[in-house]
Structures are given as C-alpha cells and as structure tokens.
C-alpha cells in the first residue's frame, strides 16, 4: 500500500495549521492550529514508521503527544490568565515584549 496519500494529507494538515497560526488572532484558534500541526507531524511520523518497517516513528509520535499535552496545560493556563487580566483573547494585544 502506497504511503503517499498519508504524507500528502499530513502536509495538507500541517499547511492549514501553519496558515491558521499566521492569520488568526484569537489565541484559542491559534492554539488549535498548533495542535493541528503537531498532529500532522504525528501522522507523518507514523507513516514513515510504517514505510521503514520499524517502530521509531511511532515512539516519536507518542513523545509528541505527551509534550503536546503538557504544552496544552501550560498554554491554556497562560491564555486564560491573559484573558483575565486584559479582557481579550487576541494575540496582537499581548505585544508588550518588544523593543
């Protein structure tokens, strides 16, 4: 079975996620787009694992899931805190960290 469709799907999902990060302002949506990119790469990992006939890629996918879970915890906490203090979930409003 050819792995190409899986890889194409992975690339497609990744691109959608990347564009979403770049164009959307709502922090929650940006956050979901990042998740989308992570899962796109997971799909690629699993596909390559299948293609190469070993489990390395699948292990990497698990790692990514664990890290993503941790990231969600921290990231959502930050977003909620920002929302509480600034009454806004737009990423552009949090631009204090500049020159």
């Amino acid at each position, binding site marked *: 079975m050819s792995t190409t469709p899986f890889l194409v799907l992975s690339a497609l999902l990744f691109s959608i996620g*990347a564009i979403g990060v*770049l164009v959307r302002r709502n922090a929650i949506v940006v956050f979901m787009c990042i998740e989308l990119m992570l899962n796109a790469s997971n799909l690629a990992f699993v596909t390559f694992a299948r293609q190469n006939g070993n489990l390395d890629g699948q292990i990497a996918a698990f790692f990514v899931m664990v890290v993503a879970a941790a990231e969600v915890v921290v990231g959502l906490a930050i977003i909620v805190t920002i929302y509480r203090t600034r009454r806004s979930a737009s990423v552009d409003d949090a*631009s204090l960290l500049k020159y």
Partner: protein
Amino acid sequence: MTWLSLIILIPAASAAVLLIGGRLTDGWGHLLGTAAPLASFVVGLVAFLKLRNDGDPLHQNLFTWINAGSSAPGNTPFHVSFTLLFDPLSALFVLLITGVGGLIHIYSIGYMADDDRRRRFFGYLNLFVAAMLTLVLANDYLALFLGWEGVGLASYLLIGFWQYKNSAAVAAKKAFIVNRVGDAGMLLAIMLMFRSFGTTSFAGVSAGMDRVSSGTATVLGLLLLLGACGKSAQVPLQSWLLDAMEGPTPVSALIHAATMVTAGVYLVVRSNFVYAQSQAAQTAVVVVGLVTLLWGAIIGCAKDDIKKALAGSTMSQIGYMMLAAGIGPAGYAFAIFHLLTHGFFKANMFLGAGSVMHAMDDDVDMRHYGGLRKLLPITFLTFGCGYLAIIGFPGFAGFWSKDKIIEAAFQDNVLVGIGAVLGAGITAFYMTRVMILTFFGERRWRENVHPHEAPPVMTVPLVLLAVGSTFGGVMLLDGWIQGWLKPVVGGEGQENLPMAAWLIQVIVLVVVAVGIAIAYLAYGRETVSATAPTRVSVFTRAARADLYGDAINEAVLMRPGEYLTRLLVFFDNRRVDGAVNGLAALIGGTSGRVRRWQTGFVRSYALSMLGGSAVVVLAMLAVKLA
C-alpha cells in the same frame, strides 16, 4: 689622581646644599657659594702645576656611567666610563672657569645683595660651574654632553632668574630650545661616532678617525659644528643670546660672555682630530665664524641697551675664535688664546656694565647715561682697560690675541683676512660708541637717579679682571700658549703670509683708528638725544632687529610649527578619535534600527520562523541536489 674630581665635586656639593637646603641656608648661602669655585680654583691650580711639572695629562676614573647591551660575541655594547681628563686644554679652561667664575661670584655678593633669592642665585651659579667643569674635564663625548646640557640648564635657570618677568621666562625658554637644536646635532654626532667606532671616548674616536670615509668625517664635523653653533650663539643659531641678557648681569658676564658661550670653540678645538680629516667641515667652521663675527658686530652697532651691545660684541668675538679654530692647527692655539683674553676683558666689561646699571637704578639704555666717568671712576678705569683690550689697542691683551687670529686668517685666505680686519674696524666703532655714550658727554640721566660708585666687593673683581685684560698678552711670550697646547691640538702651520706680519698689524691699527674716529664724529662731537632716533636708515633698522634673525625663525619655523600642531590636534580629535567614536556610533545606530524588528506580535515571529524553516529546508535540498 683621586683629588681631581674635587674640582667638580666642590661646586656640585655646594649647589646641592644651597638648592636642597632651601631657606635654612639663606644666611650664609652666598658665602658658601663663593667659596666653592675659589676652592676649585685652588685645586685646579695644584693640578695645573703638577701638569706643568710632569707633562703628562692627569686622569681620574670615577665610575662606569653606562654599560648597556650585549657583550656576547658579535655584538657591540655601549660603554661610557666617567673619566676625568686634565690635559693642557682642560687645564686652561678649569682655571678660566674657576678663576673668572670666582671673581664673578664675589662681585655677585654685592650685586645681588638686595635680592631675597640671592641664596638660590648662588646655587644656580655653582650648578653652572660644576656643569661647565664637567664639560671641559670629560674624557668622552657623552660625558661632555652631560656637562654641555648641564650648562644649558644652568643658563636656562639663570636667564629666567627673575621669572616673574614674562620677558625673562620667555628668553630662558628660547635659549634652551634653540640650544636643543644644536644639542640634537651633537647627539647625532655622538650616535655617528658610536656607529663608526663603537665608542665615544676622545681617545677612541681620535684613534679611528683616520680610517673613516671623508664623507663620514665631514658629516661628523658639521654635526659637531651645529652643536657648537647652538651653544656659542653662532649663525644660524644666534638668536637666543641677545634675549639672554634678561638674566642678572653677573650671569651675562660668566655664562654669556666668559665661559659657557665659548664651549662651542672648546668643542671644535677638542675635536681637532675630526676636522683634520675634513677640509669641507673646516671651511664650514671658518664661514660660520666669519659670518657671525660680522653679524654680531653689526648688531652691536645699533643697540642702545648696553648689555645687548656687549652681547652682540660677544657673538662677534666668538666668531673670531671660531674662525681661528676653523683654520686648523695654525689657529687652534690662538682661538683658545683669544678665548682666554676675551674671558677677561668681556667679563670685565659686563661687570662694569653691571656696576653702571647698579648706579643708574637698573636702567640699561645708554642714551640715559653720559658723563659717568667722574662719578664712577673705578668702573670707568676698569671698563676702559676692557675697552682698550677689545679694540686691540697695542699692548693690551686683545691686541695680541686678535692680531694673531687676523694673521692666521690671512694665511688661510685673503678674503677671510679682509673680513676679519673689517670686523676689527666695526668693533672699534661700536665699542667706542659704548664708551662715549656711557662715560663721556653730558649727563642725560632721568630724574631721581643718583649715580654712585659700587661697593668694594664689586670693584675689587673689576680691578683684578682689568689687570687680566691688560696683561693677558703675556701668555704669548715665547710662544708659551702654542707650546702648551701643542700636545692636544698639534703644531703650528707653516708661515705663508701674503704680506709681512708688521704690515698686517699696521693695517689693522689703521682700520681700528678709522672705526674710533667715525664713532667719535658721530657721538663724541654731536649731542646725543636721550631717545633713540626713529628716522633711521634701513641698515640701522635691520641691525636693531638683530638682522631679522628672530623674524626668520618665526616665519620659517614657529608659524608653520604652530599651524602643524593645530592641524594635528584637530586631526587627532576629529579623525583618529573621530574614527573610533564614529565606529561606536555606527554600531549603536545599527542596533537601534535592527531592534525595530522585534515588534512584539507573535504572528510576525511565527512568520519569520516559517521563513527561516523554509530557507533551511531549501538549503538542505540544494545541498542534496548538488
């Protein structure tokens, strides 16, 4: 001779006591200061007698001054041992410096009696004597240079002794700096000696001299001449001497007439082995001497300031000595002979001038004098002896010495001889002018001036120096001076006068008489105005301006130097330092621009990350494809 060094050490120690002791020594400082050169004189006299009996030069090796560099095979270390050499030439100088110097110290006790810094004055004088003695007793050019700069320092301090006067301070600085130019020449000469011979001792240089190329010998001779020009105020480094008259008068007598300014002549005579190898250098010495003797004489004619008139005369007389020294073995002895007699009569006249100034409340303008001979009889008589000596009145010291130089000049070259005779005529003119303006004619004193004769402490040295000016010629008896100096400077040249010696004497006397007559006609018979006439010929104006020596220095050296300095200061601040500060500003400015990229928008960071990743991917693909 372990006691030889006492000649230098006594005045040096006295100077140290007076200068370091400060006000503690105010009470007795002048007595110690006067005793020191007299004590040196006694030691010098003992050494002189010993030298005359034994005939061998005395030596004392004091210590190794410098021993620098590698003594490994193939290398040449620089070695100077501090050795004193008391040979016939140094002996004469030691006696002149301590003898005349001692008299001038005695005179200064009276002259400086009212100055509250008299003790310091004596300290400086002692310092000078010690340095001058080092100069003439050194056995090595570098050690000589130590004394050479030492007398320059003493001269600087003493010219500027009344340094609260701006003119004195400026004159002192000028003297030092002009001398430094000459000293640089001398330093280069010493370096050239080290390069050529590996040593700078008189003996070493003398031994190697006949094996150097004539070019080296000429350069060496010219560099030494440059040094001599600075110290002896010879053209082109003459300009400092007239300003140096800002110093107290005993200083002018001791340093700027009798001893220090003649050091250049000493240097040339001492370096006779250098000049023996280079005709060109000898000719240069003669030319410098001739030009200066006329230059100084012309300046002397136009000055109303008695000390400056005498200073012009000093330049001129040293020109005679230089001229004689440049002639070679035929002239060396006479150069020294004239140096000694000049030491007597010029010190005599300067001290006489000091006595007159003392009487006239420190007024130096001769047009304010007149008719002083009755009020200052001793000064008048002693000054008269000096006057007769310098114009070469038969029988007086200057007659013998100057006459011999003119004879030698004729032997060398008729033109040089004619120049020397002309100089004698001008000398007669300006000295007669000084005499008439000061001591004869009617009184032209200012109000409130009450001339009075100086105290004995000042007149006794005058009398002794007058005796020297009168009878100094005895040194020529039986050719004593030539014989005495022969071991140092070699024998006399052959006699090939273009005319008989008596004829030259007659010519000189006639020219001198003409000079006196002109002066008498111009100043003796006319009434002299108390202010200098302003409508004068272009020549008088030139002579009053020291023949534009200062103007030339200013236009050629000082102005361009100032511009260069200002330009460089600008260059250093704006360009060199500016480049550094500019670089700093560039970096600061660039980072100011670059930090604008940190907008704080997450999206732009994400975009740049994406762009960066894309670039990395493309680069990897490119590498893979290539």
